[in-house]
Structure formats: structure tokens, C-alpha cells
């Protein structure tokens, strides 16, 4: 059993569903008591502020749980989704729907026939890691809306896994998107960052199967990448291009060129042992940047969500910009994180600012908000990780006087 005191428990499954689907103009119904959807919006989805109804709660009460009242809720969802002109309906499970065994799949079929909207359920409960919920949501959406394209668009890519719980505000991903477009590739779709000029956010999603390559920037995009390879034959690469080396390596992979050989670090930093805590793909991207751009000899990663899929061989995967080391760990435990952070040799830590409360010995702490941890608490904090901007941000903090 995990015990938290100074940290917050990470966002879980239905938070991931919300994060994955938020930008697509659908209605995400959190099928549980009042309060579940409220907290997602108020705390975990700053995009909620003055935005349309996107994540709503079923508002189950005790008698609904005892009596079922399924038809009442089906009618409520049908009425609200049509009144609000949403493009699809997603039903996300909660601890209560899991415990009482609500047939959300049956709900979906009934709702689809009543509303003529695409309706699907995402089997979440309340304790699974948020990437699991996001992955399931992407798969459900893809199965509903993606079709085999007439032809592939040359030199085109999709970005998969750019959900706000992992990658933050959409502005943080811009350096990656600009680097890709600047290198002559076109972006067909970004899951889930709407591209400028898109009036129908689902259009890009429908067109996604026409891309030649997928780039997966968080573990939330891995299952979709595997699905798109199995269904449409689109291969993929995995990695978040952090810093200069990360940017160059990703572009080399897109051009199907070999990665450049190791070179001297752009600017050696005065640290010997760094610890990076966060989402696995971004954290391993940071590790590569600290080693290659800043010459830090030992960089350990603590993945706070499952990282096994990142290192598992998969059919369509062409490359992964992540190298697992002997001291890398995978845990979201507060006690474990504190022990690793306070190891005597650790002199630099990159993590969400919430982790700083666990630090009891002197070390350079570089804030890297993980929205799945601190959500709105650090949403507006200035930080960068991607490509050149990520390099500048890290350089400024690595070389700041203590």
C-alpha cells in the first residue's frame, strides 16, 4: 500500500481519459458520484477555465447505486450530449462503477443508437496509472474514427502521446513541432494538441492514418502507435527530443539516417550525479540531454508511471531515444523517491516542484512540472524541455550560481 504525505497521488485512469480526449470537442462522462469530474476540471484540467462542457460527472447517488437507475442516466447523457452539440461521447469508469459492475459498454451501444453520435466507453477504475486511461481512450477513439487512407502523405508524421498530463501546456511542445516542420516534414495530427486552423479537431485524427511515421512522445501514445502499425502499417519512433542532441537525433530518425556519433558536450555542467523524476519518455529524454549536451557522467531516471512498454521490442518500432541504465528505477512511491533523492552522491535533481519537499540534503533542484503530479499548482510555471528551448532552460538553471 502506498502512503503519501508530502506528495500528491498521481493522476489516475479517468484523468488520463480526460487529458487524452479533452481537445477533441467531445463529452467525457465520468461515471461516478458528484465531485469526480469537478475535481478533474478544477485541479487537473486548467483548460476547463471558461471552456465548454467537456468533462462532466454522472452525479451518482446512493440510491442510484442500489437501484441501478441505468435508464435515467442513459437519458440524461443522451439529452445533454445532443443539447451541447458535442462530437462524441466517452464514458469513463470510476471506483464506484467498477465496484457495482456498471455495464458501460451496454450504455455506449444504447447511447449511440439514441444520439447518432460516436459513443464509446473507456474501462477505467480509479487506481490505474493515468497513461493506461489515456492509452485506452486513444485506442477507443481510433477504433471509432480511423479508416484506411487512400494513400500516404509523403514525409508526414503524427505526434502521439502529447497529453497535457505528461507534456504540459501545448506551448511546451511547439519547439518539437517547429523542428519537425522546419526539417521539411508535415504534421498530419498531434494527439492531443489542436493545430492552428483546424475547425474540426477530429479531422486531423481521421487523417492520421495517412502519415508515413508516428513519433511517440509519452508512454500514453505507445498503444496507439502499435495499433496504427498493426492496422495501417505505420512505423514509429519513440522519444522526446530534449535539448540540442535530442532534437538532432529525432530529426535523423525522421530522415531515416543513422544517429550521429557521440561528440563532446556542448557545455559541460558542474554536476556528477543527476536524478530525473517524471514521465518515462520525457525523463529519458532529459537523461540523454544531460549526458550529451551537458556532459553529466551519471544520470539516473525515476519513472513514476510504468516504463516496461518503453523498452519492450515491438513490431513497428524503428528506434527509441531512451537508454535504460543499471540505476534507473520505476516507482511512484514517496518513500522510495525520497531515498533516491537524498543519496549522498546526487547533486542535481530535475523533477516536479512538489518533490522538493522530500529533499533533505543540498543539491541543485531544477523544476520540471509534471502536470499529473501538481496540475494547476504548477501549470503556469515557466519551464521548457523540448529541443532548443529545453536546452536554454536547463543551461540557465544548471549554470546559475547556487
Amino acid at each position, binding site marked *: 500500500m502506498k502512503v503519501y504525505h508530502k506528495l500528491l*497521488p498521481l493522476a*489516475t485512469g479517468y484523468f488520463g481519459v480526460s487529458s487524452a480526449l479533452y481537445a477533441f470537442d467531445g463529452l467525457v462522462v465520468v461515471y461516478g*458520484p458528484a465531485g469526480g469530474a469537478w475535481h478533474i476540471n478544477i485541479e487537473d484540467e486548467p483548460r476547463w477555465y471558461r471552456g465548454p*462542457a467537456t468533462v462532466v*460527472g454522472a452525479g451518482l447517488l*446512493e440510491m442510484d447505486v442500489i437501484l441501478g437507475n441505468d435508464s435515467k442516466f442513459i437519458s440524461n447523457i443522451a439529452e445533454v450530449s445532443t443539447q451541447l452539440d458535442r462530437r462524441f461521447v466517452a464514458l469513463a469508469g470510476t471506483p464506484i462503477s467498477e*465496484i457495482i459492475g456498471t455495464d458501460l459498454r451496454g450504455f455506449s451501444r444504447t447511447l449511440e443508437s439514441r444520439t447518432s453520435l460516436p459513443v464509446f466507453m473507456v474501462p477505467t477504475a480509479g487506481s490505474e496509472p493515468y497513461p493506461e486511461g489515456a492509452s485506452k481512450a486513444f485506442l477507443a477513439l481510433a477504433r471509432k474514427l480511423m479508416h484506411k487512407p487512400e494513400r500516404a502523405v509523403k514525409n508526414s508524421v503524427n505526434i502521439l502521446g502529447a497529453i497535457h498530463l505528461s507534456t504540459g501546456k501545448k506551448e511546451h511542445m511547439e519547439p518539437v513541432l517547429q523542428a519537425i516542420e522546419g526539417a521539411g516534414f508535415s504534421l498530419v495530427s498531434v494527439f492531443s494538441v489542436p493545430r492552428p486552423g483546424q475547425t474540426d479537431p477530429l479531422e486531423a485524427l481521421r487523417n492520421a492514418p495517412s502519415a508515413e511515421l508516428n513519433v511517440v512522445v509519452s508512454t500514453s501514445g505507445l498503444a496507439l502507435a502499435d495499433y496504427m502499425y498493426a492496422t495501417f502499417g505505420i512505423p514509429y519512433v519513440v522519444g522526446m527530443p530534449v535539448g540540442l542532441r535530442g532534437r538532432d537525433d529525432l530529426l535523423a530518425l525522421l530522415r531515416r539516417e543513422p544517429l550521429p556519433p557521440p561528440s563532446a558536450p556542448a557545455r559541460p555542467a558542474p554536476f556528477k550525479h543527476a536524478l530525473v523524476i517524471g514521465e518515462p519518455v520525457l525523463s529519458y529524454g532529459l537523461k540523454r540531454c544531460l549526458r550529451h549536451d551537458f556532459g553529466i557522467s551519471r544520470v539516473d531516471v525515476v519513472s513514476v508511471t510504468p516504463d516496461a512498454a518503453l523498452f519492450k521490442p515491438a513490431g513497428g518500432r524503428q528506434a527509441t531515444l531512451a537508454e535504460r541504465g543499471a540505476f534507473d528505477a520505476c516507482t511512484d512511491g514517496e518513500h522510495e523517491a525520497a531515498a533516491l533523492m537524498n543519496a549522498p552522491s546526487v547533486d542535481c535533481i530535475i523533477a516536479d516542484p512538489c518533490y522538493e*519537499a522530500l529533499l533533505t540534503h543540498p543539491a541543485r533542484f531544477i523544476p520540471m512540472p509534471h502536470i499529473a503530479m501538481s496540475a494547476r499548482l504548477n501549470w503556469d510555471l515557466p519551464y521548457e524541455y523540448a529541443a532548443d528551448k529545453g536546452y536554454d532552460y536547463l543551461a540557465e538553471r544548471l549554470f546559475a550560481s547556487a
Partner: protein
Amino acid sequence: MRVDSACIKIENLKHKEDFPFARLEGVGPNLAGWGVIETCLLLPQSLCIMAGPSACLRHSAFMAHARGFTDRFYMLCVPELDMTMGRHLEKVEKGIRDIAARRQEKVIFLIVGCPDYILGTDFTGVIERLEKETGKRIILGAMAPITIGLKDSPFTSAYSSFYGFLKHESRQPDPEAVNILGTFMPLSDSGELYQVLKNAGLTHIHQLPLYDTLEQFSQMANASSSLVLHPLANGLSDRMEKEMGIPATFVPTSYGFGTIAQQYGAIAASLGRELDTAPFEATARMAAEPLLEKLKGKTIAVGCSINGSPWELASALLDFGLNVDTIFARGTFKPYEWQIIERLREAAPHTRAYNVSHPSMCGETAPFDHIDVAYGVDAGIFCARAANVPLSRYQEQKHGFENTVWMLEQTCEALEHPVSNYDWIYTRNFLI
């Protein structure tokens, strides 16, 4: 307009059922204040340990972080499957035992969520063993929104549980002692209510947020009377009245001079003493005059995240001759509010009331662009062009005529130096 489905004119609001029903929880910004954790931790020398699925715990963790309660708050993550199989009891027991061993606090609130409530998990044995082993009081509570409307709210239940620390106290009734219940931010001892009570010879004024120890808190058992400033405390005051003989007077935070005068009358009757409030009223009326001048001609909206009742504030503003155009409310009416709504039906029948939880309200700002002043951060979300006056219980707690003046001063300050609604919510944390 889409928002029309969430709206009713006051003249048509006669019963709870008349209020527009939200078929799904549209996530109105309307649940500000009084989380179960902060309520529990009002009790001195207490810890709060919450057990449940991570998703449920995360919600409460935000509130604890925002209000700086992290030191006295712990979370035990229990997967749904363990709960369904009843495998979590041993783990929760061990978790509490470990935490108790390294903390000095004398009371531990064990808060469980909807799943344990629905499953009917029996914590009796766990609590008995833990109390025996640790020597600490363990109080079971529920943060279970699934019970909304059917039972006392989790906050009321938590506040009412404090009775357990008073009931065994040997009472030595003190005719000069009075309890003030239902405050989160304490009233200042230089404020109006303290002055009025002290002038009437009530020299021992007890307020929960001021106490550091259970021993200090136990003095409340000696009071001759309780004043209840928030409905949250009605459960506790009822039990103190029925079982300890301490009479209670419900005087919720209000803004209308007439209402406040009536409340002082009720307090005087309850205490059996004359209260000299005239100088305070005269001073307040004089201070209010120039402030009210600045609000003449402004169009006003009142939300339900304010400290107090939106209906009462609307009524007070109308009494001042101001133009209240809109009220944002929830479908949960306090019994005392119906009398105020009845008055509003007469005084301002065309004022519109909106259900802030209605999904049709999400993202709608254009229908409220004509509002100049919006009270409550919930009203501020919809009234994007208005000066936003939070009147949050986390700013200051005042009572009596000075509360009206404070409200008017805050309004003028917001007109002269506006703070954005976004900042009130996301920087100052006034929404949770």
C-alpha cells in the same frame, strides 16, 4: 440562448423542484470551502488519514496542499479490488499504526470514501485495536459525495464529531462564556461581535480555530450559549443544546443591516442580556453611505461561493437600492433561505437565478457581459467583464454591521484595483 435552460426568474422560484435541474454535473465552480480535511483539522491535536483509491485521495490532496495542511494529512492508497475483497483492512490498520507511532497528535480522523461507504466496510475492529494500541482517539468519517442530499454532508458530520470531545467534560457552566461555532478563519478579538459581547459582560469567547490543545477546546463545554455562524455547525450545536443544555442561536454570516439587527436581537434574547449595537450600526451606516454611492447604477451578480448566502447578499444589495440582475446558485437550499427568496420574489421578481452546476452554463460568458460587479469567484467565471469580489471565507471572517462595510470596501477596491477571476482561483486558491 443555451443558458436559458439553466435559468429561472425569481418570481417562479417557489419550491426546490422549480430550480433548473442539472442532468449531469456540469462542473460549476460552486463547491468552494469546507473540505472534510480542513474541517477535521480544525480540532486541535488531530491528524487526518484518508484511505481509498488514488483518484479519490488526489482530490483531497489538492485542498490540503492549497491550504497548507500537508503536515497533518496522510493518504493511504487502496486499490478498488482490495476494497471489494475486504483485503484492505489489515493494510489500513498497519498504515495508521505506523503513522501514529511517529506523531504526537492525540486524535486521528480516518476518512474513507464512497467505495467503503457503498461496500459497508466495517472498521469497528480496526478502530478498537488501534485505540487500544496507540492510546489515541480514532474517529471514522466519510468523504462520500455519493450521500449528498440524503444524509448530513461529510463536512457537517466531521464538525459534529467534535461533540465526542465535549460530552464527557464535567461542565462548570460559566455565565460569561459564549461559543462561536462555524468559523474557519477566526473572528478578530478587536472586531465588532467581540466588542458587542464583551460590552455585555461576556468575557470568555470561545472559537475553535484559535485553540492549540484539546484542553483549551474543552472549555466550550462550559459556555452558556453558542452562536452559529455557518450551517455546517448546526449539527454540533444541536447536540450541545439537546445533550448539554447549551442553547444555540443560528446567526449566519449576513450583509443586510436589517438582517444583522434581527440577528443581534436573537442573540440578546438567547443570552438574556441587552446588547448595545446602536453605535456599531450608526458607524457602519455612515461608512457605507459613500461606498454605496460608488455602486449606484452598477449591474450586479451574486454567486454562491461567497461566505454567506447568495440570496441574503442579493436581498441586502436590493435593500441598499442597488441593481441585482443575476444570482448564481446551487439546487441545495438551506431552510432559512426560503424566507429570503420569498422576499426577493416580491422585491425583484425579474432577477434571474442560474444553476451553476448545469452543463449548459459551461463556457458561457457573453450572456453576462453586462454585469459590472460579480460577487463570488463562481460568478466571476461567468461575468468576464465584471469586477470580481470573492468575499471568500478564506479572506477574512467578520460578523455584524462591520461585515457589510467590509463587503462594500472590498467592492470598491475591486472596482479601483481589479484582480482577475483567474488569479483569485488559480493563484489565491479561492475555489477549493
